[in-house]
């Protein structure tokens, strides 16, 4: 049986099913109990599992993310919510110096089955400290797996995979894909979700639209901007293939390279900052492997290297979107 679910419900359902299956799984973070998570990702869990396993924390990100590490060393499988990825600054040491490195530095003695779930993304005027993506920053640090679902089916399957994984997984959800009543979300993000548990493998990208003239590689909400752009381009006889990466670490290079071998053109659409990030990484990977086969230089549309502005007109000007994608592809193909 399946039914259409918004992403936030798919995530909380995944967590609930894993908590039922494995008593070592528990959740902690700010406002994840009675509130159900600021973006709904833990809705209904407190009622089902009680305050021991659905644990509201003080506003002490270092303490509860560090505690996740300690708990993991004793066989628990913590899920912690970092309310906005923008807040990582106050807890980064526990993430990148400890959780990410414990397995390697201990020579494999210590496993870190920790899920750090966090909200990302802009487009709703929340300005410079509540709209960032920053997945590139975490992907840069060895030892963290990075997953970013774009729809409710992947959201549930990736969450279950993340919980079952013995390595630390950063689970990013884009706030504007969650299907919350109070924040617009593309209706395409709420898809059929099976009631029973299932996994979406970490490290597998998905071709969400097949095409011949250009490969658009992207993630999260930009998947929809790319899909909408592809429809426009089709009217002009340009056929775009779109890859939803779903996982940044480990990166599914095969799927990207296969697609670009076919289309011989690459555009990366990235809501994270432009420099030293995902867009550069994907382009470098393609150029290193099949650079000679490209018909035109690869392009990227990313967030410019500026703090995210507040005013609607300013934010819209810099946020990657359908129009920018259409224009870039046309420039490449012509």
């Amino acid at each position, binding site marked *: 049986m399946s039914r259409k679910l918004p992403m936030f419900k798919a995530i909380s359902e995944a967590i609930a099913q894993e908590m039922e299956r494995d008593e070592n799984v528990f959740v902690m973070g700010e406002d994840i109990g009675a509130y159900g998570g600021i973006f709904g990702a833990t809705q209904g869990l407190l009622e089902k599992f009680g305050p021991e396993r659905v644990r509201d924390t003080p506003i002490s990100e*270092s303490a509860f993310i560090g505690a996740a590490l300690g708990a993991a060393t004793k066989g628990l499988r913590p899920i912690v919510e970092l309310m906005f990825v923008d807040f990582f600054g106050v807890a980064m040491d526990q993430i990148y110096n400890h959780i990410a490195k414990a397995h390697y530095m201990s020579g*494999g003695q210590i496993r*870190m089955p920790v899920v750090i779930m966090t909200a990302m993304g802009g487009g709703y005027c929340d300005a410079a400290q509540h709209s960032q993506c920053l997945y590139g920053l975490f992907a840069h640090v060895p030892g963290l797996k990075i997953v970013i679902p774009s729809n409710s089916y992947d959201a549930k399957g990736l969450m279950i995979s993340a919980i079952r994984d013995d390595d630390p997984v950063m689970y990013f959800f884009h706030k504007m894909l969650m299907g919350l009543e109070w924040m617009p979300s593309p209706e395409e993000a709420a898809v059929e979700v099976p009631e029973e548990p299932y996994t979406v493998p970490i490290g597998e990208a998905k071709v969400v639209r097949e095409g011949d003239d250009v490969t658009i590689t992207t993630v999260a909400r930009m998947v929809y901007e790319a899909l909408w752009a592809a429809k426009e381009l089709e009217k002009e006889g340009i056929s775009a293939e779109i890859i939803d990466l779903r996982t940044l670490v480990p990166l599914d290079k095969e799927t990207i390279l296969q697609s670009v071998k076919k289309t011989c053109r690459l555009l990366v659409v990235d809501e994270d900052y432009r420099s030293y990030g995902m867009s550069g990484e994907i382009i470098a990977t393609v150029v290193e492997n099949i650079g000679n086969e490209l018909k035109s230089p690869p392009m990227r549309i990313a967030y410019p290297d500026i703090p995210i502005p507040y005013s609607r007109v300013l934010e819209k000007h810099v946020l990657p979107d359908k129009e920018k994608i259409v224009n870039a592809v046309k420039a490449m193909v012509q």
Partner: protein
Amino acid sequence: MGVDNIPKETLLEMFKTMHKIRTYEEALGEVYYEGKTPNFDISAGPIPGELHLSSGQESAAVGVCIHLRPDDAVVGTHRAHHFAIAKGVDLKKMTAEIFGKATGLSGGKGGHMHLFDASVNFSCSGIVGASFPQAVGVGLAAKMKGEDYVAVAIGGEGATNQGTFHEALNMAAIWKLPVIFVIEDNGWAVSVPKDKSTAVADNSERAKAYGIPGVSVDGGDVIAVYKAAKEAVERARRGEGPTLIEIRVYRLRGHFEGDPQLYRPKEDLELATAKDPLPKFERLLMEKRVATEEELNRIKEENEKEVRDAIEFARNSLYPEPEEALKGVFAGGG
């Protein structure tokens, strides 16, 4: 015959461990300079990199760890050899790790500041203040799983001015977790004296802010440390919550090897020697007729042999295969 109702065998075990630590640290302090004289090159010799030795601080480790079981966790600092030895970490594997050898605890991937021995629940970190939240996580696991193991977080007095200290104390207190926060006050945060870094004379006063017991102990007296730690560990095991213990110790060597200690008044070094807990304890054991000089000498000889053997083992061990560097980031390989 014992002292203060502490049985003879416990006292001798404590003496043995304290003396072993001192012998070990002083021996490493010699080996460290091999290849580093006449010109000090931190990257040269059999023990490269930084080396923070714990001579003078043995009473803190031994007085605390004597109460611990293998399933209790100790999360240490950059200066952690004494706690590692007192917690029962294998001396040969630990030494091999410090030498960067394949036979080391982590196959040479961790090093002196990152010693991990999962079999006795010991770990440490080179980041000041990182231990506190991690111990809270172990305490949380004990509580959630209904087990009676405890967690000990070690920090220097300098670490009490990190946010993690305050976050972790608060969280352990509100959740009533079995955690013992042990502050080793050696008076110096590298080169900054306590009265220039810390707003209160005794960190134990800070326990009041979190509604938990706080005690200050003279580390020159290992029996005093033993008693304070006993109460704290028993309290934690009974499920009555965390305790903060500050132990005044004296650093007999520099912050790290090669530290000329120009910042340190001569009187402070003299005081350190006068307060040395090891000869004091040795005198006490003889005065109270717990042991004869011959008995103690026999223990010393055993220690000297064990330390020699450990260093020999490390010297004779092979370095890891260079390609090993690329393995072990994730539990699933890669």
